[in-house]
């Protein structure tokens, strides 16, 4: 891989090794990705702010630090994208809303600070649905990113720009936020890896997010890269021992919950094939019944709506016209909920959390599809209670219960749109979860596939 053009295919781990051994400089890497963003982003629409000048300055600094023997680790000199609702010091943070406009934060969100401390370079601020709501809207300040696998479709959100940028090779990794599936659904839809960590494992302050249910998590092109980023975000060495095969792991499948969601048949087939692969890897597959998972998805959206209104109340009263026509309604819904509604939703979470914990005492992880729909448009058109968890029936329960959930590429539809597999682990069990995901990833071809972007480049 010597051509500058191919640098976009490097994973974080591979780029980190090359930067460490001197065969790649952070400056040439950042320059190659800046060129790629400028060429492809007019079509993909995943970048709100490209921090070209600052990223090149940081790359120069990293280069001289490494040359002087000050290598900080595998993220040193690696350009990272950041969802534009996460604060970045000295770099515009708009949340894709006129409400924030050209706000330039005075300090980094802790997650961004942690990545910078590990030597990563903040490369770009990435597009999202306005204030990280889950449904793409044409009337947001910046139009929704396109799915690089099928440019006729939007990418699922809300961390759509992060998933599109990583899948398209505009940056090797990005941060997203996830309050109901907003890291995992776009990762699945774009054929990349997404991790929602255990509640509060990663400091999510400084991100515009519902505090009880939202996590900051990495979107990457490999499970190893997700482990590397989590190590920097949370402390610890999740990438070590990743290759040790899990010993006769037991995987629980909540079949009744999955069947009730009536997922697209192609998603059902891909999930069945993923389960076959897990079994072939020596894992024991057991059926589990966890009462209340669908209630937990709905309850997560009650909490999300209530906390979103609480966060936006003042701005909605004084500057409602600055919100996009859809976003102003999304953020207003929670105003009509009562305190009793909110408490009932939190209690639902406590009950289901206990049931998931009890189940995970007998199995090592749960496996589910990620989203019942193949495209963002299908999810929006299905009217499956889009504001109360219908499209997030597999992802949102684990925001409310706080369990970690990893999405890995798990299939491809006939229309060449990626389909993901979700693995849910014990609270604080990210190391085991990542090992399971890594074993699955290495046994399947999906992570080696890249979207066909030559046509997009020609359009751009």
């Amino acid at each position, binding site marked *: 891989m010597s051509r500058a053009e191919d640098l976009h295919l490097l994973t974080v781990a591979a780029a980190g090794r090359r930067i460490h051994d001197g065969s790649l400089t952070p400056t040439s890497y950042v320059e190659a990705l800046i060129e790629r963003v400028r060429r492809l982003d007019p079509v993909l629409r995943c970048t709100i702010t490209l921090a070209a000048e600052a990223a090149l300055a940081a790359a120069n600094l990293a280069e001289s630090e490494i040359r002087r023997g000050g290598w900080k680790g595998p993220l040193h000199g690696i350009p990272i994208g950041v969802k534009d609702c996460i604060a970045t010091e000295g770099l515009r943070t708009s949340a894709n809303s006129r409400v924030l406009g050209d706000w330039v934060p005075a300090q980094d969100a802790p997650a961004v600070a942690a990545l910078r401390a590990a030597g990563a370079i903040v490369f770009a601020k990435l597009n999202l649905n306005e204030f990280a709501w889950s449904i793409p809207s044409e009337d947001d300040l910046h139009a929704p990113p396109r799915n690089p696998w099928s440019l006729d479709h939007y990418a699922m959100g809300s961390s759509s720009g992060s998933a599109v940028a990583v899948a398209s090779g505009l940056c090797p990794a990005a941060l997203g936020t996830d309050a109901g599936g907003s890291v995992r659904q776009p990762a699945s839809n774009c054929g990349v890896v997404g991790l929602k960590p255990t509640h509060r494992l990663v400091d999510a302050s400084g991100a515009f997010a519902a505090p009880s249910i939202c996590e900051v998590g990495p979107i990457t092109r490999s499970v190893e890269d997700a482990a590397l980023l989590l190590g920097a975000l949370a402390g610890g060495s999740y990438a070590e021992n990743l290759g040790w095969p899990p010993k006769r792991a037991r995987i629980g499948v909540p079949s009744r919950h999955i069947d009730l969601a009536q997922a697209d048949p192609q998603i059902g087939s891909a999930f069945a094939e993923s389960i076959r692969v897990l079994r072939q890897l020596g894992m024991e597959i057991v059926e589990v019944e966890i009462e209340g998972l669908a209630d937990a998805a709905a309850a997560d959206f009650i909490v999300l709506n209530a906390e979103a209104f609480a966060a936006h109340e003042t701005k909605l009263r004084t500057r409602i016209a600055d919100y996009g026509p859809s976003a102003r309604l999304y953020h207003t819904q929670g105003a009509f909920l009562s305190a009793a509604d909110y408490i009932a939703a939190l209690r*639902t979470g406590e009950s289901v959390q*206990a049931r998931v914990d009890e189940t995970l005492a007998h199995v090592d992880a749960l496996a589910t599809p990620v989203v019942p729909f193949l495209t963002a448009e299908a999810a929006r058109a299905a009217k499956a209670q889009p504001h109360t968890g219908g499209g997030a029936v597999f992802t949102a329960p684990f925001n409310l219960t706080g369990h970690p959930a990893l999405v890995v590429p798990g299939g491809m539809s006939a229309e060449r749109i990626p389909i993901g597999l979700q693995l849910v682990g014990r609270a604080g069990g990210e190391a085991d979860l990542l090992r399971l995901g890594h074993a699955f990833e290495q046994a399947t071809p999906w992570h080696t596939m890249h979207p066909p972007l030559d046509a997009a480049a020609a359009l751009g």
Partner: protein
Amino acid sequence: MNRLSAARLGEMASGLQLELGDDELTRLLPMVQDLLDVAQILRQKQPGGIDHMGQRERPTDKSR
């Protein structure tokens, strides 16, 4: 489920000092109705008032 009217929603929005036009209230109505319906179901499933002291549901393991 209690049905919410656009007029009632408008009154509530006005009481909360939220300036929403008629079109916006029309779009908002089914969204809020969905949310309130779901919330009502959850409240019924999670009785937590003083009438239910000591009767809180205990989670049961259905996985074995």
